[in-house]
């Protein structure tokens, strides 16, 4: 009983003293930053499409590669962590978040060696995206295949 009371008291205290996050500000920042990533993607697609012999699909792939390249590079150099912290969902919901999560876990475990460090941990943060993406695509794919024939 006493323990329980202490716990409640403790929770009240922590709630009182934890810094209040400005949710509205976070929402605006993530909306604008996420939107800008979308605009950058569209800009790159249009830029690559202007090159002769590059189709729209190839331009889309090139855009993805470019965004991933930049996110990995900026993460490895170091300042992307601070950006992601500030922009929140604005940077981790686009594809840049996947690249950032992969690179930062690889960097973090680099000191444990090439195989047991980088190799085993590179997908530590982003692996769940692949896992649940494949599982859900498989389940929904079967559903759609049965009901709509592909």
């Amino acid at each position, binding site marked *: 009983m006493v323990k329980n009371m202490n716990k409640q008291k403790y929770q009240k205290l922590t709630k009182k003293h934890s810094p209040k996050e400005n949710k509205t500000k976070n*929402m605006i920042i993530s909306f604008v930053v996420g*939107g800008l990533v979308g605009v950058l993607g569209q800009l790159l697609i249009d830029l690559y499409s202007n090159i002769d012999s590059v189709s729209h699909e190839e331009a889309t792939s090139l855009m*993805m590669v470019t965004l991933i390249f930049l996110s990995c590079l900026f993460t490895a150099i170091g300042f992307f962590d601070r950006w992601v912290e500030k922009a929140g969902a604005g940077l981790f919901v686009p594809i840049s978040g996947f*690249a950032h999560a992969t690179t930062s876990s690889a960097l973090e475990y680099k000191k444990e060696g090439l195989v047991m460090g980088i190799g085993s941990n*590179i997908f530590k943060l982003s692996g769940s995206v692949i896992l649940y993406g494949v599982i859900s*695509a498989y389940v929904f*794919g079967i559903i759609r295949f049965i009901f709509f024939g592909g």
Partner: protein
Amino acid sequence: MIYLYSFLFAGFVCLLGQIILDNTKLLPGHITSLFVVIGAALDIFSIYDFFVNTFGAGAVVCITSFGHLLIHGALAKATADGLLGLFTGMFSLTATGITATIIFAFIFTIIFKARD
């Protein structure tokens, strides 16, 4: 006009992510996984195809498009080869993103040091 649509769509998806992040105990990993599943689910009725055609890159850069591309590649193969296509085609469209991520993450991890 496509730029405005891209901005609005990508911004809206990120806004949803931020609202979930701020108001629940879910971490970024949970949210991205959830969004991938949503992206795949939206493809049952070809809704995400409509998003990509209407909103351009805004719909492509979001992690939801990862789920969309997984199911899309799998179904394209399944239509041609039957149910085995779900296995052979699963990564056919997402190969770009996954391969690029692995290669660049590895190269830059080798070159740069972790900051603490």
